[in-house]
């Protein structure tokens, strides 16, 4: 986003006469029906058992599809300036960064969490490198 070199004038040709793009009724209703259908799908998906991780992945894929539908058509991102899309991607990237690095740290220290104060878990004894 910061290296955005698209200057102030916007690239999309304004096929509507007004200031911004007018969403067609067909597009609005189509998106709405798709969203309702996907909601039903995601609820139904919990009936079939693919194991915790795959169910989570499936639910997330459906959620991402619903999210992109809302962002593209309801929020007019499809007809809007490119810079707004760059912005959305940058925001999600920052959030993903936060999640990724926080998860990166969780790998090691977790087995030393004390659930039972009398039985301390063994210390992470690492191999001693040859100096």
């Amino acid at each position, binding site marked *: 986003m910061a290296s955005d070199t698209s200057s102030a004038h916007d690239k999309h040709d304004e096929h509507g006469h*007004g200031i911004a793009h007018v*969403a067609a009724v067909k597009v609005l209703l189509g998106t709405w029906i798709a969203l309702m259908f996907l*909601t039903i799908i995601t609820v139904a998906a919990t009936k079939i058992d693919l194991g*915790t991780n795959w169910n989570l992945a499936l639910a997330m894929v*459906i*959620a991402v599809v619903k999210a992109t539908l809302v962002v593209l058509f309801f929020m007019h991102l499809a007809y809007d300036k490119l*810079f707004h899309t760059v912005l959305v991607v940058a*925001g999600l990237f920052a*959030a993903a960064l936060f*999640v990724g690095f926080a998860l990166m740290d969780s790998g090691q220290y977790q087995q030393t969490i004390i659930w039972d104060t009398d039985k301390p878990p063994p210390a992470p004894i690492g191999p001693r490198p040859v100096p």
Partner: protein
Amino acid sequence: MSDHDHDHGHGDDGHGHHGGHGHGSPWIQHHYDDAQHQFDSGKLGIWFFLVQEVLFFSGLFVAYILYRYHHPEIYAYAHSYLDVKWGAINTAVLIISSLTAAWAVRCAQLAQRRGLIFCLAVTIACACGFLGIKYVEYSHKIHERILFGKKFDPCIASAGNHLLNKENYCPGVKTSVVWDAKTNKADRGCLDAPTGYDWDPALKGIQGKCVVNELTMSGTGANRKEVSRRPVEACAPSPDHGSGHGGGHGKQTYPCWTLEQNPHVCPKGPGAMVHYGDHTSRGSTVEIEVTCEAVPAPVEPKDALAPVDGKLERGEASFKKPVTPSKHDLKHEFQSGPPPEHTNMFFSIYFAMTGLHGLHVLFGIFVYIWLLVRAIKGHFTPDYFGPVDYAALYWHLVDLIWIFLFPLLYLIH
């Protein structure tokens, strides 16, 4: 979270740009060149605000992901406390309101005043519906004491059957446990195993001879005395004991008692629980007293025909086909037991996420009521519909966050 009228770029007495050219609609603030400039600036402003909101919620998503990564068993247990039916209805309600919000923008652009007012009204109605459903869910949790932090003391297990708990004010049930908050231990009412009777949790049956009385007491503290008592018989041991409310189905005379186990409340043994089969919660006037005699466990003759785990001696035959419990049974078994350690953390994150989201829905309702008032006054024209568009973008973001919250919290497998 005071947002003020952050970027609804409305101005009330705008004139042309300084020494400026032609008079746009009265809402064009003086320092903008024209309506297009004002709209584009407002649009960019709201997009930055939405990115900031995404980061604001990302904190909670990190807490959710980290905690689920470390303790998947808590999520597997606690998610069935949440009612998927209400969650799905809420998702549908928000999607409908998202549609009407987008349609309202269309009506404002095409100067269809009545359509705009109708769509705004429906959006507000759906939002209030959403908060109503949230109220229903929250009150159920408060009723069953499924809360966060120290107040997490559920009356029912996540499969729905009753559990021993500390506060003992659960609807339809009264346990023998009297909890002493000062020492954070059960004062009395727990049958500690060393009393000699033999309690076999697997069979959930009662090995020893126990007598349970329901006492009605009066007064508190030192001058607490017993007014009357009546004996209570044992519940008929139904096959999957303690599933569903009301302690088992079939012909059951109420009140009746069972022995339930919850290591967080009675670490060493079970406690007695009297089922009343109704939904009123008894206060401190009612107490349950349980005494069990020591009965030595009968010595089982070695069952020659029992399945030898693993290897069969030559010549021995095993008649009973070992039943391997299906995944569903294991899951049900796990969920009807007491909650794992620190399940309150799931509800801390649940209430934090849905609470903050609900707050944003509430703020959205105020914004839309303000839009409705201005639409009725006819402020919005095809040249000036910025506020409707920005409010719709904000509302779509609130819907987006719920689209991710719903599967993450309700549809855990």
